[in-house]
């Protein structure tokens, strides 16, 4: 009886794991086999042509724009906010409020961010459907990620570093940028990498704020489409699974590289710690 029950559970465990792995292998395999024929130098670096056969260079550039702009804004703000929470703030109502806000922002679905961005950045601030409007929306999306990872890495900096530095007659600010932030850097970096992944994977919020123009953006005030949005649109509009899968390969490779560098950095972090 007991043995049979054990056996049943064991089968379920193996079965589930097998199913999960099979499905995931199938997804990646499918996208790869559907799309790999399109991958070429011209596909990556070529200009888009609506008639087909064009490349995805404008979408790559647009994606890079959104990453760079949102991180340029979100990283300093996020680090400063985390520094405030960990190094300056006294526990109390204000800290609880900020923590609540940060956690709530994490839980809001991206379509709501899109709604907000479409009205606030696009209409109210008159930025129009543009890369900048999308990037500002993305800034709010990744802000909590950067705050949380930075806070976590500040927590790992030994308290004795702070004492040692302050006891030498330095200010908190000096201690911060000479000792604490350098020690917390690997953690902050992995937060940034996580954010890049989030930006690359984002679609709904960008769809509603950057629009869908499939051409090389002339400036950050142009409407444009990112890789992910492109992959969505070619599927929805023309059912071009091959093209969508080719873009998918590029996306998966980007995520793979990001994951590998995050692993590399965290390994380095562990080594640096004595």
């Amino acid at each position: 009886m007991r043995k049979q029950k054990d056996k049943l559970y064991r089968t379920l465990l193996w079965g589930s794991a097998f199913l999960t792995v099979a499905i995931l292998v199938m997804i990646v395999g499918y996208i790869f086999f559907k799309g790999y024929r399109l991958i070429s130098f011209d596909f990556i670096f070529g200009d888009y042509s609506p008639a087909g056969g064009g490349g995805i260079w404008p979408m790559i550039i647009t994606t890079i724009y959104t990453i760079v702009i949102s991180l340029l804004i979100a990283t300093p703000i996020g680090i400063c906010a985390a520094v405030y929470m960990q190094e300056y703030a006294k526990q109390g109502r204000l800290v609880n409020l900020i923590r609540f806000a940060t956690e709530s922002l994490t839980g809001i679905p991206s379509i709501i961010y899109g709604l907000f961005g479409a009205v606030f950045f696009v209409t109210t601030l008159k930025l129009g459907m543009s890369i900048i409007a999308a990037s500002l929306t993305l800034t709010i999306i990744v802000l909590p990620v950067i705050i949380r990872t930075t806070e976590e890495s500040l927590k790992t900096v030994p308290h004795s570093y702070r004492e040692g530095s302050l006891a030498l007659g330095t200010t908190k600010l000096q201690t911060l940028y000479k000792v604490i932030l350098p020690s917390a850097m690997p953690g902050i970096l992995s937060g940034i990498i996580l954010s890049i992944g989030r930006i690359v994977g984002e679609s709904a919020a960008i769809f509603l704020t950057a629009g869908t123009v499939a051409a090389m953006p002339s400036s950050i005030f142009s409407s444009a489409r990112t890789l992910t949005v492109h992959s969505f649109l070619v599927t929805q509009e023309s059912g071009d699974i091959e093209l969508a899968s080719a873009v998918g390969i590029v996306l998966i490779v980007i995520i793979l590289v990001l994951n590998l560098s995050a692993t590399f950095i965290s390994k380095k972090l562990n080594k640096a710690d004595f």
Partner: protein
Amino acid sequence: MNTNGIKVRMNNSTLVQEPNKEVKISVRDLDLFYGEKQALYSISLDIHENEVTALIGPSGCGKSTFLRTLNRMNDLIDGVKITGNIMIDQEDIYKSTDVINLRTKVGMVFQKANLFPMSIYDNVAYGPRMQGIKNKQELNEIVESSLRGAAIWDEVKDRLKHSALGLSGGQQQRICIARAIAMKPDIILMDEPTSALDPISTLKVEELIEKMKKDYTIVIVTHNMQQAARVSDKTAFFLSGEVVEYDVTGKIFSMPSDQRTEDYITGRFG
């Protein structure tokens, strides 16, 4: 206020009279609270220039807390409240808001070596650089003289650019002392500086303290009573946040006037 009480405590020799020695630190009626909880009870004592003063007592007696009031490290903890006076060179350090100036004058060495993850050179030069010294020549001189002052120059002079974290525990602690010396302080506070070290390293640090006495006023918290007896000129015995007895070290260890001091140093508790 019960003036009688103060008198009794004075008679109990928490203030050692030494007319021919300069008083460097003078503490009067110091109370310290962590929130509601009182940790120090009206501490009054004088610490003399160019002497080693040891603070001994069981764990949690307030000796480390007291040490940290001398360079205001307790300010870092939320909810600490202090009443009374601490005068260093006749200036009340809790009246001034210039903590930077205080901490450049009062250096500190911690229980566990807490070098930064930088090179040996950068660790020692850290404090002076933060004071705005940029001249390479000047920094080199400071680093060398500080390392010599901490009796570790010969051991590390060939690898100043190597990470300080690669050194042994004893070496690291002496670099910490060099880092404190580099600020040219008057006073050096040491919070159980040898408790994490092996006996040989401990001996080296103790010899160093002996030598440093002529240039600095040293206050050292120690768990190790032999250490207090070996290195200090005066000893204060702390118990439950009070100074039970404060006197010349030889007297404390040979004929303590308080029964509790005797019980502690003969190992009956603690």
